[in-house]
């Protein structure tokens, strides 16, 4: 019990392409989360921010930036950067501070905006930079996700229709989510009619980038009880493990995997939740809902197997049977996932926890998973970052 912290409040700024300063999204999300928690800003003792690297100095010191924007009140601050897993790293920092007894209540926050115009790679010959090398020889971003998708088709017999079904399911889930950017129910035909990007993935199989913000108020269990919120959902585990040599699959922006001639290959994605399950003392059979990082439709199926929600190769079968739809046995991405949100890097891992918080409280409206007791997230960012968070009633 002593390893748990309480989630008192969750808040988001709707995802979109708003083109405003990222600080506005963050402060909005923080104020929603504080109100939701019934905690005054002055009572927050620690602000743990996920960094954004596309918005200059304020983004690098996001924890302090948000604390100042909310009004300096002396709280200690921290900023974490871990690509797409930045939010979970910030959450882990806040949890550690609380469990160590160094503070009682913390704000965890991440927000991002996409600057206008295209992000151009730096000019010049940079043969030591893997990102430069792979573009030079024609390896694009969707290449990696398409390779994983094609591999599923070859190994397990998944089809492009299965991948389209993930989009159809998630678009139906996100349709009534007020924080989602894309709120339109797409059909399998809509997906099939969209342009091929990287065979077998079409435009509607891959996610976009968005503006957005998400925030959580977390506290010690004692503090939660003290303010009459002893039944608040608990964070039971956070895994932010790095990969173990040798890498099994080739990850962006690399041109090759490690060699497994001497040391056996290991799957990073499959290793991520193992530590979370162990820490929580909870097994995959106990999970009632999952939020996974569907950078592509096919990747959602990989995650289901990595989280051990089904046997390897069985994910599409569950999908086809409607088991991963809200109302099914193990709903995946009831929020609508990245398919409906698009990626707002430092906010995304926190948005997953926000959704699970509402699900466990029974406040998710039309997308509510009935009787949800245990939720798990999975997420992966560049350069060996990833996260898996377990939250329970």
């Amino acid at each position, binding site marked *: 019990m002593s390893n748990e912290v309480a989630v008192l409040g969750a808040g988001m700024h709707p995802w979109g392409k708003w083109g405003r300063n990222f600080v506005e999204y963050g402060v909005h999300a923080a104020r929603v989360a504080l109100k939701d928690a019934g905690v005054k800003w002055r009572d927050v003792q620690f602000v743990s921010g996920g960094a954004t690297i596309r918005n200059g100095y304020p983004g690098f010191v996001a924890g302090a930036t948000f604390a100042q924007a909310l009004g300096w009140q002396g709280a200690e601050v921290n900023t974490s950067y871990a690509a797409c897993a930045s939010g979970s790293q910030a959450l882990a920092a806040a949890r550690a501070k609380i469990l160590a007894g160094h503070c009682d209540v913390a704000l965890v926050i991440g927000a991002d905006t996409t600057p206008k115009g295209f992000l151009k790679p730096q000019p010049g*010959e940079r043969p030591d930079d893997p990102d430069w090398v792979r*573009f*030079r020889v*024609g*390896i694009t971003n969707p290449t990696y996700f398409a390779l994983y998708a094609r*591999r599923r088709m070859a190994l397990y017999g998944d089809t492009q229709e299965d991948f389209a079904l993930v989009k159809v399911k998630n678009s139906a889930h996100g349709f009534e989510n007020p924080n989602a950017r894309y709120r339109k129910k797409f059909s399998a035909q809509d997906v099939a009619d969209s342009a091929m990007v990287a065979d077998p993935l079409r435009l509607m199989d891959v996610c976009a980038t968005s503006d957005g913000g998400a925030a959580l108020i977390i506290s010690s269990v004692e503090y939660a009880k003290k303010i009459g919120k002893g039944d608040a959902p608990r964070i039971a585990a956070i895994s932010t493990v790095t990969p173990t040599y040798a890498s099994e699959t080739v990850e962006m922006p690399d*041109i090759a995997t*490690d060699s497994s*001639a001497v040391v056996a290959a290991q799957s990073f994605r499959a290793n991520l939740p193992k530590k979370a399950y162990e820490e929580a003392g909870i097994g995959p059979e106990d999970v009632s809902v999952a939020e996974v990082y569907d950078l592509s439709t096919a990747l959602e199926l990989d995650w289901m197997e990595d989280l051990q929600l089904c046997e390897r190769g069985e994910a599409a079968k569950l999908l086809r049977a409607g088991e991963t739809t809200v109302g099914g046995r193990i709903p995946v991405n009831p929020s609508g996932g990245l398919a409906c949100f698009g990626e707002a890097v430092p906010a995304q891992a926190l948005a997953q926890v926000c959704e699970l918080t509402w699900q466990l409280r029974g406040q998710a409206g039309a997308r509510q998973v009935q009787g949800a007791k245990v939720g798990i997230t999975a997420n992966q960012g560049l350069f060996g970052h990833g996260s898996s968070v377990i939250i329970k009633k």
Partner: protein
Amino acid sequence: MSATPVLEGWFTLDGEQPHLLGSQCQSCGTYYFPQIRGEAKFCRNPDCEGESFDEVKLSRTGKLWSYTNAMYQPPEPFVAKDPHEPYAIAAVELDAEKMIVLGSVVDGISVEQLEVGMAMELVLEALNDGKVTWKWKPA
């Protein structure tokens, strides 16, 4: 072959039987591609303290692990044709080194002609700016 390679020291310029150039750790025997470079070199096997490496030619054949294509024009520094012509991309698992290496597929071969598990070999082909790179081709 008097071609200019797109990257120095990444592959041999043998037009008939080209090889990717990797490093092999003298202590544990593991392979690296691209080569370990720098004034000081360190093995990345967590149980190995090796700091000396041999330059080795990697297997020039392997099995197709997966494949895709680039339907849209990649950004610079890729040099695209005008208009862009889609090309296939392969991930090939090298026989001896047990590592998966990406590369584009030779001109004229599309995804319809590829199948996971098929034998692939390494060849050299010019990029659109005339510089030579490694590519994969069904063996």
